Structure formats: structure tokens, C-alpha cells
């Protein structure tokens, strides 16, 4: 953790994400207006940014800042829950496939191959089109269910390496049952790359959710997510630019922070980095006797 904080990318990423998370948590407190209230349809109809409404108002006379703050809640919650679920699924499937090998591995990985061959956005659009309105929970589950394929591949590859290491053979030689070996010796040593993928995936899922909402098949009005705010202003970009600009900026900053943190994590967990850490540990060994 300390070494992580030494990386400037990680520091920036963590600070930005902390602020975003805080905004999401405190949304009802810091939002100046009710996000779905139509304040004054006659006088506050699509007004540009002003002191009373720093990010302007939309065509329905709603305060864009309040909507953006509340949208943070939904966008972030959907992303975090979806990524947590898909990571868990991906790590479990990957580790089981890699450790068990044989038929289990072949079947699981062919399923993943098949799923990976369909573009994720297309898959999501098809499912939403077939089921109609899926709601926030449904959307989250969909994003989770379509996000674990790549992770399972990464984790499986790592498992194939770890399962040949001496401490796994050693655990087998000491009579540990397979489930115990998987949980105690394999999983803790393969989640690293999964964690990196997860951090990068948060940014990706925020973008996906925004994209779906923008296409009008994600978060439904009047609830606000970053994508649905952009959707509200999509046809008025030329005159009501603040409707698309500010949520877009929020997405950009958050995704950028996630990717910066992910990059820093990846460098940190790089095997070559681990090797150099071991070397420094070895150069100052504890005396043997």
C-alpha cells in the first residue's frame, strides 16, 4: 500500500475516486435542489450556467448540478456492484478452470471464448431489447454477467502458473484437500491481475452504462445517471451545451482516475517488479543463526 502511494498516478487516481465516492455518498446533502423537481418551467427552461444554477438547467427546468450529483450515485453504484460481481465470478471460474484442468477447463474456456466473440455492447442491446425495461438492478446484473469473461481468462492463465509452483505441490504433498489448496494457496496468489483488471473495468463499465443510458436503454428517466443526463441534452448540443459537457467531463475524469489507478496497480503487481522486490529483500537478509 505504501509503495502504491509512492506512484503519482495512484495518488491522483485515489484522490479523485475518493472525491467522487464522497459526492455519491453525500448526494442528498450537497445537492442544492431535488434532482427531478421541475423548478420553474416558465423562467428556468434550459438556462445557461449562473450563480443560482452553476451548471445551468435543462429543458424541464431541472438543476443540472443536482442531477449530476445524484447521477454520480447511480453511475458509481452500478459500476462498483457490477464490477465486484463480475470479478468474483471471473476469479472463481478462472481459478477452477485453471486448477482443475482437463474437461472442466475445456468446457469453461470454450464457453468464455464463445461469449468473448460477441461484442459486449451488442449483447447488452440485444438483451435489453428483448426484455424491455430492466431497471437499475437488472442493468447492474447484466453488466456483471457480461463482464467476467476476460477476467476469467487472465486468472486462469495465472492459475496455470501458480499451480505448478512448489508450494502448491508442497501443500498437496502435505495432504491438503484440493478445495483447501484452491482457496488458500491458489486464489490469494492469482487475484492480483484480477484486481488490476477490475480497476480498469470500473472505468469501462461507467462508460458502458453511460452509453446504454445515452441510447435510451439504460437508466430510465426521471432517475438521473451521467449517461441519461447526456441523453437529455443530446439533441440540443449546439445551444444547451452544458447538458452534455458537464456529465461528459465527470465521466472523463472518473474513467481517467480509474485507469490511472489501474495502471499504477499493474506496474506494482508486475512479476518483474516482484522479482526486484525479492532481490532487495535478499540483499538485506536476516542472519541464519
Amino acid at each position, binding site marked *: 500500500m505504501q509503495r502504491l502511494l509512492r506512484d503519482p498516478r495512484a495518488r491522483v487516481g485515489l484522490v479523485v475516486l475518493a472525491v467522487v465516492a464522497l459526492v455519491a455518498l453525500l448526494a442528498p446533502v450537497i445537492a442544492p435542489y431535488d434532482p427531478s423537481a421541475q423548478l420553474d418551467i416558465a423562467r428556468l427552461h434550459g438556462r445557461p450556467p449562473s450563480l443560482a444554477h452553476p451548471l445551468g438547467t435543462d429543458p424541464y427546468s431541472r438543476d443540472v448540478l443536482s442531477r449530476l450529483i445524484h447521477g454520480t450515485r447511480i453511475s458509481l453504484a452500478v459500476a462498483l456492484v457490477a464490477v465486484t460481481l463480475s470479478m468474483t465470478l471471473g476469479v472463481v471460474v478462472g481459478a477452477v478452470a485453471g486448477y482443475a484442468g482437463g474437461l472442466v477447463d475445456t468446457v469453461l474456456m470454450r464457453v468464455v471464448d464463445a461469449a468473448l466473440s460477441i461484442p459486449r455492447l451488442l449483447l447488452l442491446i440485444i438483451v435489453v431489447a428483448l426484455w424491455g425495461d430492466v431497471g437499475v438492478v437488472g442493468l447492474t446484473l447484466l453488466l456483471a454477467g457480461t463482464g467476467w469473461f476476460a477476467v476469467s481468462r487472465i486468472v486462469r492463465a495465472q492459475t496455470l502458473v501458480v499451480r505448478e509452483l512448489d508450494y502448491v505441490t*508442497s501443500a498437496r504433498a502435505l495432504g491438503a484437500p484440493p478445495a483447501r489448496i484452491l482457496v488458500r494457496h491458489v486464489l490469494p496468489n492469482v487475484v492480483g491481475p484480477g484486481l488490476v483488471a477490475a480497476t480498469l473495468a470500473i472505468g469501462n463499465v461507467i462508460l458502458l452504462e453511460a452509453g446504454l443510458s445515452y441510447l435510451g436503454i439504460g437508466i430510465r428517466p426521471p432517475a438521473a445517471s451521467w449517461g441519461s443526463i447526456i441523453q437529455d441534452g443530446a439533441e440540443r448540443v449546439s445551444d444547451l451545451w452544458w447538458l452534455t459537457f458537464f456529465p461528459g467531463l465527470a465521466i472523463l475524469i472518473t474513467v481517467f482516475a480509474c485507469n490511472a489507478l489501474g495502471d499504477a496497480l499493474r506496474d506494482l503487481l508486475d512479476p518483474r517488479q516482484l522479482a526486484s522486490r525479492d532481490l532487495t529483500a535478499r540483499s538485506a537478509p536476516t542472519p541464519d543463526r
Partner: protein
Amino acid sequence: MTAPPLLELDDLHTFFYTDTGVARSVDGVSFSVGAGETVGVVGESGCGKSVTALSILRLVRAPGRIEPGSAIRFEGKDLMTLDEGEMQHIRGNRIAMVFQEPMTALNPVFTVGEQIAEVARIHGGMSRKEARAKAVEMLTLVGIPAPEQRAGEYPHQLSGGMRQRVVIAMALVMNPALIIADEPTTALDVTIQAQILELMADLTRRLGTSILLITHDLGVVAENCSRVIVMYAGEVVEEATAVELFGRAHMPYTEGLLGAMPRVGGESERLATIPGTVPPPTAWPAGCRFRDRCPYSWDRCEREHPPLYQIGAGHTSRCHLAEEPEHRNHPHPPLAAQRGASAA
């Protein structure tokens, strides 16, 4: 009539079914280890030593397989007839294993205390607290100073010698009857090697544990083993007591190994080597498998696969020289060396 040995391998075959053919890594190995005895297994890389060790615990993974007809008798039971659950009870409990590389034999994400305690929890059914006390006790036994504190440290915080002590402690938790040590000192400094070997010798004397010591270091064997088994190309090629082997090696391969040992005060500047390499296990040559690298080989060696000849009390050798010793008087450059010269 002597008591049956603790461990008896009878015609062990372990084959690997690879894309390039069937690798007959262990091809008919038989030997035994008595109670309290330390037996050495020596041979080059790729001769089947480690696969033999893994086979004893039935840890060979697919595409590897222990062939039917192989018997591994241990404490009166044939391990080949046990199911996986019964094998898990044997592993770590009655037979334990010490690995070559102490850096990778320990899980980097758990403290050494937790890893020793895990063995006690699996087999001893101990509570977390009892197991932790056991871990500290084991660390004390293997001579680690400040064991209370060390138990809470991670493997990367310990030196190589200390890590190997921890690995030995893990093996000894359940006081097994047999320890299989696969090159336990290869990755260590020479001074630490001596300490570790001394520790193992001392512990086995006190606890009465048998050791199967797998190594390619004949010096290690000379100091520690009562009996030595030499393996080559998946077979036992010579077996004798350590004294006999070092004084009167019979098989030319053993002679080659002994000749390749560095000696204090030796006259030659370059170490002797055995020309050529071990043939691939997918295609052992017919006849004698060492023929191409042997300075005495003659036509019979090409035709006829030598059996293990009895050449003295407790001394066997897989070499036709046992029947036709006169060929020893006509050494010639081995075929492998001749081929190497013509290729160059």
C-alpha cells in the same frame, strides 16, 4: 528373517502421455527404504529421480500416470490400492516431502507460522490456537532463533537457510515415518547446506525418521546416506552401501559420476565430464541405455538390455561387465564423444 522394509517400490512405472510420444520417465524401478534408514538416490537431471519421488506420494499429474502393475508398499499397505482420501491422510502425516527451492516451496501470502500450523490443522485436528503453539514448537525444533517472532513473519523476510528450516519444520509436524527430500540443499550456500544436512541427520536420529534423499550431489550422499541408489534413464543402474559405492563402483555411469566430482587437492585442472546427454525419455535406446556414453561398451550392449546383476552383498549393477569383466581392459572414446567430434 528381517522385518519388512518401511517403503518398498516394486516395478514402478510412471509414464507421461505427451504429444511427442510416451515418456517412460520411471521405467521399472524397485528399491526399499528400511525404518530409520537414510537412502540416497542420485543421478543426472532427467533420470527420473523426482518423478519417482512424486510417484511415491501419488502426486503425478496428468498427462503422467503410474502404470498398473506398479506397487508402492508402505507400512504394509500398497499405496496404489488406496483412494484419494486415504492418500491425503498418508501425505504429510506418514510421508512428508521437502522441496528443492525454499523460495517457492512456501506460499508468499501467509506467515511461516500459519503455514506450519496448517499441517497441524489438517492432520492433527487442532484448534487455531493449538496449531499456532505447535508451529512455534516446530520452529524451535529446527533451530530457528526467536521462534515466537519468526512465526509471524512472511517467507520473503527470511533467508534461504531459514526458509528451508521452515520447510523441514512443516514436514516434521506430524512426525512422519518417512521424509522424501528432493534436492533439499541444492539452492543453498555451501555453509548453509552443511547446517541443513546436519539438522536433518540430527532430527532423524532423534525421531527415528527414515529419509529418501534425492540429490545429484555425491558429496551429500557420502556424508549422509547408508545406502545409495544410482538412477539413469528411468532405471536403477546400481545400488550399494555408500562405502561400497565410493570404494568399488561397478557401473561405468557411477564411475563417471564419481570421476566428475571435484576433489580437494585433485591434480587435473578441469573437472571430468561424461560425454553426451541423457537420451529423451520418449525414446530410450534398446539394449543398454548408457551405451552411447560408455567407454567400455561392446556389441552385446547394443543387443541386450542388461538386467540388475548381483555383484556383491547388497550390491547390484545394471552392466554386462558383471559377466564379461575383460571388456574393462579395453576402454575407448564413447560413441557420443566420437559423434560430437565428427560433427565439429
